[in-house]
Every structure is written in C-alpha cells, then in structure tokens.
C-alpha cells in the first residue's frame, strides 16, 4: 500500500503541476485527500507490518500520520480560500498545490520510514517542497525567507548525513551494516561510544532545523513568517513533527546505550536555550506570524524537556507535540482571516477583532487559552505531566527556571492577543473591511476541540498507541 500511495501521490502531483484548469485542479486535490485518508486507515489497521522493506507503520508513525491527515484536510480547504480571492495566476497555483501534495507525501513517508537513511531522503524532499511553498508570493521578502530556509536546511541535512556516516562507523565495529532503527536499538549497547556521541550531536543538531530548537531554529522563523498561512500551518505543525520523529527515534537508540544520561544533558541544554530564546523574542516581536513561530519553538523545547525527564515525561512529550500540532495549525489558519481583514501582519495595525469577525476572534481567544496551556486545554494536561516528570526526576532548578520563562511568555503572548482582540486598531480604514464567512472558522474550532478532547478524555486506542510508541524507552 505504501508503494501504491507513493505512486499515486506522484501521479497526482505531476498532474497538478502540468494542469492549469481550475476544476481539474480541485478534482486532483480531492483525489489526493481521499488517497491520504485511505492510506492512513489502511496503515492503522495494519499496525507494525513492514512494507517495501523500508516502511513500517509503528505506533509513533501511525499517530503522526493521523495528525497529518487530520490537518491536511483543512489545509487544502484554506488553501482553496487563499488562492481563490487573489488575482489568479494558474502557474503559481499549480506549483502551490503540487508542492503541497509533495510535502504531505514526503512527510507521510518520513513518518513511516524505519531505516534512518530513507528517513533522511524524505526529510530532504520536505525541504524542497516547503521552499516552493514559501516562495509562493514571489516578492523580495519571501525570496529572502526562502533562501535562508533552503540554506540553513541544506546545511542541517548535511549535518544529519554526517551523523549517519558516524553511525555507520559505530555499526562497523559491531559487525553489521543495517541502519534500520530496529537493528540500531538491538545493537545499541555494543556500539562504539565515541562514534555514537559524534553521531548523536550531528543528527540532533541537524534535526533541530525541522523541530525548531537551538541552534538551527532560525530557518523556521522566517519560513513560517513568509509562507502563505495554510502552508505556514503545515510548516509549524506537521513539519515540526517530522523533526520530532527523527530525534525521538534516535533518542530511543541512545537511551538503550550507556550514553543515555549524556544525551539527556545535551537535549536539556538545547531545550532550555530554546525556551529562553522564545521568551526573549516573544517580548519584542511585533509581527503576529513570527510570534506564533516563536511560540512553536517554546513548545518544542517543552516537549524535549519531557523526553529528558523520563518516566511519565515520555508519554507527555508525545502527547504535547501532537496536541501542539492541532493548536498551532488552528492559529495559522485563523491568521489568514486576520490578514484579509487588516491587510497587515503587524500587531499595531490590528485591533478590535471582535467587531470585524466574531467567530474568528472566538477562535483566537480559545486558541490563546490552548497555546498558553490553561485548563481545560489539552496542552495543560501535557505540560502538567511534563512538569511532574521534571519534579520526579529531581530537575527542580530546571523546573523553576522554565516556569519563570513560561510566565513571561504568557504575559507577552497575552499582551499581543488582547491588543488584537480588545483594543482599537490604530489607523485602520474601516470602509473596505472584508466580510469573513463564519463557516470558514469551523475547521479551527474542530481542531481546538480535538486538542481539548484528546487531552482531557482521550480514547483508549489513542492512549495505547502512545504507550506503544514509547515502549522502547527505558521505563
């Protein structure tokens, strides 16, 4: 089925690229969505089977795949809205949809890959397709964002490749040359530690470009800022998940080797620095999309802290990153409407949102509660579990520092959101405000509600899947 999925997606992508007719475009997009949903359902029913030698639908892959499918449907819908109210350039539209299809396909394949090299190839493909999406508006600022994104991601991917080479050195001594994750976990205690350390440093640094941690987070900020809002939603939710999957799988390997605590220290430093960076920038940022991007960095840091702490933290980290994907994509979808009303992304030009778009502003308010992890949002549960695991693992100093940072972030985030929602806008021309249909905010309510549901009262299958995903970590 993976082969059918990849071939079908390739054909649909090619069709989208060469076709200029609107109706066929939409038909192909709907066909792709159907293919994606079918693929997800099939893989869920065939848990843990290996297909084509390199793809196996293990629990983590299924969870991420379901998240991807759930987000891709509103992404396509909002892309349709986004592209339908500009003066249409069929060629640009074709590139946009083709790139989006390729991004979703590459992400699905990367989630399911069970061999580190195949994972690497598909992550490289996501860089390519994401950059086409970022460049959609084709003005100098988006060119700058695309160039920075491509360059930093190219260097990061090269670093991951160097890490894979060091890993093969380590395996060489253990007498095998199979780089699949199953073999790596099995051989983890015997691997040469020097090479394993180097491999971990390089792979971790490389994947932080996708996940959004120090040191390579910079690419993502500009990318999420410049990409069109539906694409930005994908970049800050499911693309971050592929970084998480890469780091998580390698972390599982490290945790079964003697270098577990050393790896924990490395990740701890990166996560703390990320939350610090997010705090600093959130207090001074004026562009709403960049604010969301920095908030993503903060959440990635918190999820990594869960991994470091262990115990219940493993469960909480996976839960956090899934729920964060839903919440952040809802924000970015809503951003499209904000931009259409105020024609600007700066917080100074926006205000009094309740007057112009009631449903949208409800989304923003509920989203604010979700993103800053206030009850009853799902992220509250996952953050509480992460704090508890940090406390139980005797990282009390880290916990206090993180709570301090989070307080500052809540203040900064709240200051900007309340300015958007309640204060009057400065210099806004009220005559030509576009009317947004309330139905367009439905997808965001659904996503936010899903985050609440999965946090407060998750279905048993969901909990089982997460527990199965973390089973290889030392309990």
């Amino acid at each position, binding site marked *: 089925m993976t082969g059918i999925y990849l071939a079908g997606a390739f054909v649909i992508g090619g069709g989208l690229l060469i076709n200029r007719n609107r109706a066929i475009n939409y038909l192909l997009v709907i066909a792709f969505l159907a293919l994606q949903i079918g693929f997800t359902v099939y893989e869920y029913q065939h848990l843990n089977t290996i297909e084509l030698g390199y793809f196996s639908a293990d629990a983590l892959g299924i969870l991420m795949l379901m998240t991807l499918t759930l987000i891709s449907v509103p992404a396509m819908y909002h892309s349709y809205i986004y592209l339908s109210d500009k003066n249409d350039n069929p060629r640009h539209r074709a590139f946009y949809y083709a790139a989006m299809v390729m991004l979703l396909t590459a992400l699905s394949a990367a989630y399911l890959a069970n061999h580190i*090299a195949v994972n*690497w*190839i598909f992550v*490289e493909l996501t860089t*390519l397709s994401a950059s086409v999406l970022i460049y959609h508006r084709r003005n*100098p*600022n988006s*060119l*700058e*964002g*695309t*160039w*920075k994104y*491509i*360059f930093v991601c*190219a*260097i990061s*991917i*090269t670093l991951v*490749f*160097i890490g*894979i*080479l060091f890993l*093969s*050195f380590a395996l*060489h*001594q253990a007498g095998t*040359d199979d780089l699949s994750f199953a073999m790596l976990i099995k051989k983890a205690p015997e691997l*040469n530690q*020097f*090479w394993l350390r180097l491999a971990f440093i390089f792979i971790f640094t490389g994947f932080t470009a996708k996940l959004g941690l120090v040191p390579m987070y910079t690419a993502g900020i*500009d990318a999420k*800022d*410049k990409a069109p809002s539906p694409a930005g939603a994908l970049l800050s939710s499911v693309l971050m998940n592929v970084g998480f999957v890469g780091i998580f799988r390698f972390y599982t390997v490290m945790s079964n080797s003697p270098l577990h605590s050393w790896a924990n220290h490395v990740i701890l430093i990166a996560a703390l620095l990320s939350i610090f960076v997010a705090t600093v*920038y959130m207090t*001074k*940022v*004026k*562009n709403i999309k*960049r604010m969301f991007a920095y908030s993503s960095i903060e959440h990635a840091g918190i999820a990594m802290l869960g991994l470091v702490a262990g115990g219940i933290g493993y469960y909480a980290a996976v839960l956090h990153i899934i729920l964060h994907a839903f919440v952040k994509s809802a924000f970015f979808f809503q951003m499209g409407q904000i931009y259409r009303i105020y024609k600007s992304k700066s917080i100074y030009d926006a205000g009094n949102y309740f007057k112009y778009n009631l449903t949208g502003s409800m989304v923003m308010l509920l989203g604010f509660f979700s993103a800053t992890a206030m009850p009853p949002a799902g992220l509250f549960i996952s953050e509480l579990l992460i704090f508890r695991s940090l406390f139980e693992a005797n990282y009390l100093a880290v916990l206090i520092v993180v709570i301090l940072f989070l307080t500052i972030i809540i203040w900064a985030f709240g200051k900007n959101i309340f300015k958007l929602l309640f204060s009057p806008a400065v210099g806004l021309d009220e005559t030509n405000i576009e009317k947004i249909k309330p139905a367009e905010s439905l997808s965001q309510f659904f996503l936010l509600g899903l985050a609440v549901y999965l946090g407060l009262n998750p279905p048993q299958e969901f909990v089982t899947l997460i527990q199965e995903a973390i089973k290889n970590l030392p309990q």
Partner: protein
Amino acid sequence: MTNVLLIIFMISLLYLSIAHQLLTYIKILAFQGVLLFGIAFIELSQINVVNLAFVLLETIAFKALAIPFFLKYVINKNRITRDAEPFLPNFISLIINTSIIIGMFVLSNAIADSTISKIYFVVALSTLFTGLYIIVTRKKIITHVMGYLVIENGVFILSLAVGNEMPMLVNMGILLDIFASVFLLGIFINKIGDILKDVDADQLRHLRD
C-alpha cells in the same frame, strides 16, 4: 597513494583560506574535485563496476566540471565583483584554519577504533569546519554557496571511509551533492541576482524582529 592525495587536499584547504579572488575559489573547488576522483578511484575498488562508474562520473562531471562552470556563469551573469570580501583578514583566517586542523588531529587521538583510517576522519572534519568557517566569515552570498560545496567535499571524503562496505552511503552523499547544486545554485542564485541588485548578505537583513 590516497594519503598523498589527502595531504594535497589539505594544502588546498589552506590555500582556500588565504585566497582573495572568487575565481581562485572556483579553481580550488575544481582541483578538489579532481583529487576526489583520484581518491575514489583508488579506494572504492571493491564495489561493483556500475556503482563505481557512477561515482567517478559524478566526481569528475559534477564537482570538477559542471559546478565550476555554473559558478562562473552565475558570477558573470550577476556581475559580481572579483573580491571575496571577508569579514576577518586572511591572516587570521589562516591561523584559524590551521588551528582547526590541529584541533582535529588532537580529537582523532581519542578514537579507539582501529578499523577506520584516522586520516579520513581528520581531513573530512577539517574540511567540514573550514567550509562552515568560510560561510560565516564572508559577505557575499555566492561565497556562502562555495562554502557549502566545500562542506560537501568533506562529506564525500567521510563517506569514502566506509564506502567499500556500504556503497549506498556514498550514493546518498552524491544525491545530496546533486540536490544542493541543482537547487541552491540553479534556481535561487539566478532569482536572487535578478531581484537583489547587490548580491551581498547585507541585503538579506529585512526579516528581523
């Protein structure tokens, strides 16, 4: 014989740190491509012939011919000036590059593995860090791309160290190289040259907080 070629490769790295003109960078990159061709030819004797032919073709055709030609075309088309415009004087670059090489020597003493040849490790990592250093200390955007190509060369050398047992990794390295050159160079330098009048990294400072 590979040791000789690797030492000559390191001398070319030192020369890269004191070069002034962009054309010198391109010539050194082409020369490094030829050296890598030699090393690949001698080292990878145990993989099958088709794979070997592909690797050799890629080093000569891509690294030594196509990429230098493409870089020269981009420089001419965008009328980029000759100087490499470093932030630090070349003297300090030379000292830093020499200390990078010394640092890699010292690091390689910590390797307890006897099956991997240490000189590959030293040369590959020095190339990697020299490439990163070139990216960080040069103003022009085209020198960023050249620094990335130097990193690519380093990755290729590292992959040759295990090339005999795992030829797939060498192929993946080549895939990365082709991806980088086609994508980075082909599409975006041309676009950047058209839109930004002065291809300076100073122009890329609009997206900030």
